[in-house]
């Protein structure tokens, strides 16, 4: 479904991604782990085209993301208005939630389906209520984001992304900004999505979650994919020294 080849991204002097290949098939749950600054957030941000890639290519369902080949065979970057339809097919959940502060919770969920997909308001609202029920916040529809806890805000953010009926869900460290006792409620929602075979790429530091939920774990370091495989193998028999060090540091910390 998703196919990234040789993806590179540079921020000034810093190389954030270098020659990254990634394939995700339908219904697969891919969890990306790695130390801070390893480029894992940049990778999902590039897939969602919040960042422009500097090298390589990313395809979603065979369609080139962010570029087109014109009649003369020249590769051209698409302007934002042309990439919007591509972004609508992916749902993004941010570390800092990014709920629209001036809109109620329910409006946060139905605004985009109405404006981006042209769904009728009544239909979009009904579905917003359904999705909020599903993440356990059906009673909070009229609240403003600031009135919710971090965990609740993140569950709304997941509902908001799901309202667009995305082909692929992207999670950028969804629990990193949460108090420890609120992490569980967000992971529970993500687990239930995984059980329904939602295609997901999850960037996280929650190794236990990776172990339980991932079909495949991708370990990144210094902007590259260092190792990937099923969680049992990756955590049980790490092949590279870098992964061994990473896992060792984690088990020592917890």
């Amino acid at each position, binding site marked *: 479904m998703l196919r990234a080849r040789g993806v590179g991204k540079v921020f000034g002097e810093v190389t954030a991604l270098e020659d990254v290949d990634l394939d995700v098939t339908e219904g697969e749950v891919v969890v990306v782990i790695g130390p801070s600054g390893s480029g894992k957030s940049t990778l999902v941000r590039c897939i969602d085209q919040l960042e422009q890639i500097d090298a390589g290519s990313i395809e979603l369902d065979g369609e080139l993301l962010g570029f087109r080949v014109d009649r003369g065979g020249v590769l051209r970057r698409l302007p934002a*208005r042309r990439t919007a339809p591509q972004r609508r097919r*992916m*749902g993004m959940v941010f570390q*800092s939630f*990014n709920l*629209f502060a*001036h809109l109620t919770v329910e409006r946060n969920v139905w605004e985009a389906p109405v404006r981006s997909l042209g769904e009728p308001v009544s239909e979009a609202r009904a579905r917003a209520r359904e999705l909020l029920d599903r993440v356990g916040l059906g009673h909070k529809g009229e609240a403003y984001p600031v009135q919710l806890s971090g965990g609740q805000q993140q569950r709304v953010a997941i509902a908001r992304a799901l309202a667009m009926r995305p082909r692929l869900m992207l999670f950028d460290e969804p629990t990193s900004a949460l108090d420890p006792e609120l992490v569980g409620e967000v992971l529970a929602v993500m687990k239930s999505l995984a059980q329904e075979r939602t295609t997901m790429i999850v960037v996280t530091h929650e190794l236990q979650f990776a172990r339980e939920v991932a079909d495949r774990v991708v370990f990144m370091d210094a902007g590259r994919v260092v190792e990937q495989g099923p969680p049992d193998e990756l955590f049980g028999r790490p092949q590279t020294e870098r992964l061994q060090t990473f896992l060792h540091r984690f088990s020592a910390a917890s």
Partner: protein
Amino acid sequence: MSVQGPESPARSVVGATRATDGGTTVDARDSRPERRPLLWLAWVVLVLLVAQVVAFVLRSDRLELSVVGEYLFAEPILDGLVTTVVLTAVATVLGTALGALVCLARLSSLAPVRYLATAWIAVFRSVPPLVQLLFWFNLAYLVPVLSIGIPFGPSFGEWSANDVITPYTAAVVGLSLYNSPYSAEIIRSGLSAVPRGQLEAASSLGLPGRDTFFRIRLPQATRIILPPMGSQVISLLKGTSLVSVIAMTDLLGAAREVYTRTFEVVPLLIVAIVWYIVLVAALTAGQSWLERRFSRGY
């Protein structure tokens, strides 16, 4: 880390112990406010000041409060008041609209458009409002004929500048132009203050640019724009008092017309002052209402 040992503090359990001070139980409910001698002194000073002002007003025979009362609702004054209000409203609307355009031009991705906006702000912010009013009022000398058309090409309509530029149009043009760079900068600061994450969220949901701007960015920017915009409107209101130099009878102009006839200068200035205070109070009330409305969710 271990906290066991002979010197480790006793483990405290809610309800098991109470904080004590030398054997007496201390309870916040028994407390009284701290003594504040300075507070009393401040009250005494305030009362004295007010008493002095009141005494001055009552005893002064030059204030002529009866004259103030006589002219406060007099027709020429009320006409001037209407002119002031209309000028403020028109210059606010035009100046803000112009400012919004200049702001968008400054944020444009097209460099020539950005340069034009920067130059606009530089020029119209540099020239004092009084000078602008005089300049636009005397425009007919510089440009006798105004025309709309293609630059260096045919024109679609021509008007004599002397007919177009009346005191009223000169005032509207001058005040609107003077207002526009301030509005532009206030709007720009508001738009730039909207957190990046909000725009990224809109972008990742594939919201069209127009909806991102009008439904996400602008409503959030408005909350930030309102307080300085309110101050700007208030200073514009006061700035309208300059138009009397180009023979417009605004609130101040009306008061001046009366006192040049009757020589009751101070009472008529007080009439104008009272009305300016009333107008600013009304604007302030409107601003508070708007601010409350746009701060939902914060």
